């Protein structure tokens, strides 16, 4: 897949702040093992007191672009319909993405997770952390690609389903689109017939609950990246860890590509925090960086045996290898697959 460069200004907005808030949606063991997981906040008190309260729900993502490092995170946010704009837009300015710098995002998330804050009392939220490992292995499946859009839609649908299953009365759903809005909207309307669904481009700038969902997603991704990076900066292999770290994780961010180049294992490449499926990672591995070439059986080549393979010496230049290698017969080539 091609990497699309992002603007420098955007890199700034995607670069996590130092000491980003560690929300309860950060599950260290899962992140370090490379697993995907979901986190759900408790149902907020205002809603729990009266489960018939009509609620509005927003969904947004972070790290869906061509990032090399770290998870893609889907955030879900809901609150009573009656205070949607007053609490989120008027009181906390969740509607203006220019104001939402990484530092502001982090502090808003902290407020949301602080007992007795107005946000904590009335708003529920959830995140799905889709690990780089699972995104890569999905995109590089043996029998056809489980592409990023399909993975993203499944994560979204799962988050909404599980939130509705808690009994919260979701009346309206706002969501940033994946692909064409009309098609995505139709699909979601079939799955969630009881809610009014609005799928729109740039939904985070139009609907405060989507903006809030975006904050949950982004702060969780920032903190998850931090957790991944910690495991590198604390290893005692004596390597000098650059103070820059890996930056935003975007390929147009020099910190990220420099880090990838400097930390490439010749055989394994990188750890589970890397998205091997993206062009930049593939190019680095297949380039002149000194890594070993790895050949996988071609997908379309299910029976690669040629008739001439049965004639000794026809394809093999010579019987390479020493005596020991030929002890049990000759080496099988990748054609055997």
């Amino acid at each position, binding site marked *: 897949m091609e990497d699309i460069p992002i603007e420098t200004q955007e890199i700034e907005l995607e670069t996590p702040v130092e000491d980003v808030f560690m929300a309860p949606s950060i599950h260290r063991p899962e992140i370090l093992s490379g697993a995907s997981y979901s986190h759900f906040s408790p149902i907020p008190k205002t809603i729990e007191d009266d489960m018939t309260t009509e609620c509005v729900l927003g969904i947004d993502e972070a790290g869906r672009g061509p990032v090399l490092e770290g998870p893609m995170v889907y955030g879900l946010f809901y609150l009573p319909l009656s205070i949607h704009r007053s609490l989120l837009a008027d009181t906390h300015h969740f509607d203006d993405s220019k104001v939402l710098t990484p530092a502001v995002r982090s502090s808003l998330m902290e407020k949301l997770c602080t007992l007795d804050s107005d946000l904590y009392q009335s708003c529920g939220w959830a995140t799905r952390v889709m690990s780089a490992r699972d995104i890569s292995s999905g995109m590089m499946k043996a*029998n056809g690609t489980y592409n990023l859009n399909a993975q993203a839609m499944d994560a979204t649908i799962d988050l909404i389903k599980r939130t509705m299953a808690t009994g919260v009365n979701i009346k309206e759903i706002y969501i940033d689109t994946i692909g064409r809005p009309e098609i995505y909207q139709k699909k979601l309307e079939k799955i969630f017939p009881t809610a009014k669904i609005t799928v729109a481009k740039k939904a985070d700038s139009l609907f405060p609950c989507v903006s809030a969902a975006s904050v949950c997603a982004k702060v969780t991704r920032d903190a998850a990246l931090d957790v991944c990076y910690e495991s590198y900066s604390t290893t005692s292999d004596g390597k000098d860890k650059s103070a820059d770290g890996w930056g935003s994780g975007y390929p147009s961010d020099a910190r990220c590509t420099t880090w990838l180049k400097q930390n490439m294992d010749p055989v394994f490449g990188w750890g589970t925090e*890397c998205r091997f499926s993206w062009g930049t990672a593939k190019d680095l591995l297949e380039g002149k960086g000194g890594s070993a070439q790895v050949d996988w059986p071609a997908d379309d080549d299910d029976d690669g045996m040629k008739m001439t393979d049965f004639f000794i010496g026809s394809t093999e230049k010579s019987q390479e290898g020493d005596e020991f290698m030929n002890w049990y017969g000759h080496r099988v080539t990748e054609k055997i697959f």
Partner: protein
Amino acid sequence: MLAIKPSSQKPEKCSANVLPCQIKYDGPIEAKQRYWKPVETHDGSKSAYFRGRELRGTDVALPEGFRGSVLQITEKRLHPPPADSAPDSDEEEIPEDIKIAEELAAFDSVTVWGHDSAPSETEDAYFKGLKEWIAFSTAVRDFGLCRDRN
């Protein structure tokens, strides 16, 4: 010909893996847990990730009486050539040149890996190879033992 020289101390235990790809690299590597960490899955197979792909593996245990060895062929000879060799005496039997292979490590099972699904016991070339070779060599050995006894 080769002669296997068992290591003087107990050889280091290692795990042997057959991967579903060809890695153009020959030599020692450090398989850090960060990069290679097989785990048991609920269906009994193993799961690990390599270069972004998920691999599923099955252990094939070597049967009782067999031993897996990682060998390194040395330049040492089993019969060092005599210092004053007589090149023209072709009547004399020249001992065969046998190199010594030293045991670096030992293993008692091999994990055979497939991309996304564990290799099939009846279809995978390596799986069959391991099973059939062991069965075949067992049959040959047992036949030899029977004959010797009679």
